[in-house]
């Protein structure tokens, strides 16, 4: 970690990356573990949230368990000079949860725009992917959808291991 996160922040990340303690005063428990006052833990947590180091605090569901059994990573080969405009439009669709520009790996991988679509069935996901294809029109030169068939691991960040 660089200067934006000092050693105490780093220890706070390590103490919470597996989850918040499920006790009435979780920030006080963390304070005890780190040997600092609870007010400082809370102040640091707020600062990390404000600066975006913490994206959010809360429940991280297993998508399968909450009904999203179909999860399709749609990938698109679109012209480089058009990708920022197209990415912004695809990312704004209400059913797209992540949308990124990533590098091609030619010849194996011609796709540069990645849009994740979740649904209760493959048909639902494919119908949404068809809406993306429609929106892209002639800018879509090729596309594919990669459905997840198994979660092999989902622990999240683990620094200091």
């Amino acid at each position, binding site marked *: 970690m660089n200067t934006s996160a000092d050693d105490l922040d780093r220890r706070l990340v390590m103490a919470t990356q597996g989850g918040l303690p499920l006790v009435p005063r979780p920030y006080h428990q963390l304070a005890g573990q780190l040997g600092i006052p609870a007010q400082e833990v809370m102040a640091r947590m707020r600062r990390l949230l404000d600066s975006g180091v913490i994206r959010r605090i809360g429940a991280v569901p*297993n998508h399968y368990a909450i009904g999203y059994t179909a999860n399709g990573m749609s990938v698109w080969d679109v012209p480089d000079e058009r990708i920022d405009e197209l*990415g912004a439009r695809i990312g704004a669709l209400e059913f797209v949860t992540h949308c990124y520009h990533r590098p091609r790996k030619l010849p194996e991988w011609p796709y540069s725009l990645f849009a994740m679509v979740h649904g209760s069935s493959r048909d639902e996901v494919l119908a949404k992917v068809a809406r993306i294809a429609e929106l892209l029109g002639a800018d879509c030169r090729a596309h594919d959808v990669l459905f997840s068939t198994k979660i092999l691991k989902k*622990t999240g960040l683990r620094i200091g291991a």
Partner: protein
Amino acid sequence: MIDALDRAIIDRLQGDFPICEQPYAEAAAALGIGEDELITRLQRLLDTRVLTRFGPMFQVERMGGAFVLAAMRVPEAEWERVVEVVNAFPEVAHNYRRESAQNCDFNMWFVLATETPEGIGAAVRRIEAASGLPVFPFPKLKEYFVEMKLAVRA
């Protein structure tokens, strides 16, 4: 497996968990339940793996680190061995098996999370050495949208 209250808890608590002296009590009050009940329910949702975690989600880039999507083409005969090798790396934050609608054979997709940008290249080389297979990193060049909150449907 989950009831209406569990659904309400998951829907309401995918973000904005309070930072205060008794955050569970505050969140529980907003849901119209008691602190004990919320804590018990969250523990059960974690035990039954409806939730994979409860706590802060980090953007490691904002603290000088890196998150990078990577993929491998794993032959079926070697699948179990390679899953074990790849998952053993603490830098692998999550890993999914995927199958293509077409004939794409990139079937293992994982995210590497490291404390420094240089850590990604090092992890890629170590995974390649341990698995004997090439790893293809797909670093994000631009993020257009990320919002992982999904309403419970189950």
